[in-house]
């Protein structure tokens, strides 16, 4: 598993290990969508048509960039019910993200409901790089 959940009394944490930034960001997104719904089931059902979502933002460092990424995922899910199925990172550095994603529309009548994520918290939030690659931990308010 490229990511795993960990415990917090009322909420849920996500721990992601990845060899590079692209994997870190994509695995985090997949972990996020799997907390909300059954992402694999949506992928297997091959919904169509998919819609395209573009993102383009800069932050001061990789932690801020990663936090912004998760906040943007939460925002597009909350407002457009979008679940990302395909990722194309046009540019991804520790301070810049440019992405074109293909997304399916979440339908509460058809798809599995898991957690309504209220927010991405800063509580014990960190992104670090070591010899093995990248490690990120984040707790979501449920």
């Amino acid at each position: 598993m490229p990511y795993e959940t960990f415990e917090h009394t009322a909420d849920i944490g996500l721990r992601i290990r990845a060899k590079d930034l692209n994997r870190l960001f994509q695995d985090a997104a997949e972990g996020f969508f799997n907390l909300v719904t059954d992402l694999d089931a949506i992928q297997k059902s091959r919904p169509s048509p998919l819609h395209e979502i573009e993102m383009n933002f800069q932050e001061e460092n990789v932690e801020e960039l990663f936090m912004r990424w998760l906040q943007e995922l939460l925002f597009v899910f909350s407002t457009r019910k979008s679940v990302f199925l395909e990722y194309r990172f046009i540019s991804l550095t520790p301070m810049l993200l440019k992405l074109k994603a293909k997304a399916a529309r979440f339908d509460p009548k058809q798809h599995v409901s898991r957690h309504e994520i209220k927010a991405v918290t800063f509580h014990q939030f960190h992104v670090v790089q070591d010899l093995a690659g990248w490690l990120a931990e984040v707790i979501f308010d449920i």
Partner: protein
Amino acid sequence: MSGQIPLIKLDDQRWEIPVSYKKGMRVPGLVFADEKSLPKIRTDQSLEQVANVAFLPGIVKHSLAMPDIHWGYGFPIGGVAATDPEQGGVISPGGVGYDINCGVRLLRTNLTEADVRPRLRELVGALFSKIPCGVGQSGEINLGKKEIRQMVREGSGWAVRHGYGSAEDLSCTEAGGCLDGADPDAVSERAYQRGMDQLGTLGSGNHFLEVQVVDQILDAALASKFGLETGQVTVMIHSGSRGFGYQICEDSLDATRHALTKYKITVPDIQLACAPVHSPEGKQYLAAMRCAANFAWANRQCLMVLTKQVFEHFFQRSPTDLGMDLIYDVAHNIAKFEQFTINGKTKVLCVHRKGATRAFAPGNSELPEQYQDTGQPVIIPGDMGRNSYLLVGTQQAMEETFGTCCHGAGRAMSRTAALKAAHGSSIRKELEARGIIVMARGEKGIAEEQPAAYKDVNQVVDVVSRAGLAKKVVRMRPIGVIKG
């Protein structure tokens, strides 16, 4: 873990974290708990968070923790802190939480369990199909941009003006269902987008709607004043400001994070980011937070009206005949300016209640006429298998906790641990065997919210009652539950 934190026993319900525990604490911590519950409390980081809250500039008397305390973000859930704006006191979005004005309302009915029990499953099914709940569910109340701005300025009053309830409901809602000073211009476009389709939706997680039965009268005189007797059916609704409030908290944490350097404030946890009440950042948050509080009151008002419509249609009885009146609505995630006497001086303080309920004593000018003698109704939900309570506020709470008591049972088990402990379907069956019908969008949600995941609300309320922070009136037990 909070295992090593020194706790000085003051009496059987009160424990102090001395100001010497951590350099930077401005006041001691005061934890309300009994000896039995302390080992569990010590298993997470909530006591450390009580100490951290004591760092906030302008904090008055104590960093308080109610007996349902558990690990939160910045503040513990069950945390209370009052700051003095005239002494550099701050406002902290973390002291309110992401779900701004998450709260509970309680309705009485003229129905008895005997009226409901034979058709309980159909009633819960009717509620489940009418009340939007769960991940990604939109409400039926469509708001344009102009309307949502008006709604967040007016709160419950907007709902009543649009046919959702009556003027009497407003007097039975904390703050009349509207905080003054809500400024729609202080709210981000993103928050409006997240809230646009969510008015009249229950949400997910620990939010719920319960059909309950009064199972114990604990103060006959007070119960009679609230029109409650044993066997009577009540309805409890737990929800908040939905995506609108979550986004406002996120926006404000970002702004106050950057304000820490500007105002030379040191806090041990970034989730305690804050700004002086009188600063532009503080004022901005307060103006936006009040909009979210008003959204939540309008939301619970609409949810209540949807519930009443289901009951009227289901039982084919008129509203008067059903007697579904609002007893009270309380916020348990909020910051408000309230007047207290501190060392003989009257002060207006900024009281943060994060998972804590206002519990004002009889005679308080903020209470409506009908509750002047009883004290403020305090509604404490438990888990879906045990009990909930109606209490009233006391003078002791006014003097010791800024008129505050606990807000619920408090979690005892993480969501992952709860999932490992049981499957949703088996919890559903167990509850059914005990006469409780549960309907939820996801089976996992039921497992995560199972009774064993929570502390026993009866013990929590006992501590509050023995400490004199609130007085028990009646106890309810659930018979029907809908969850997101």
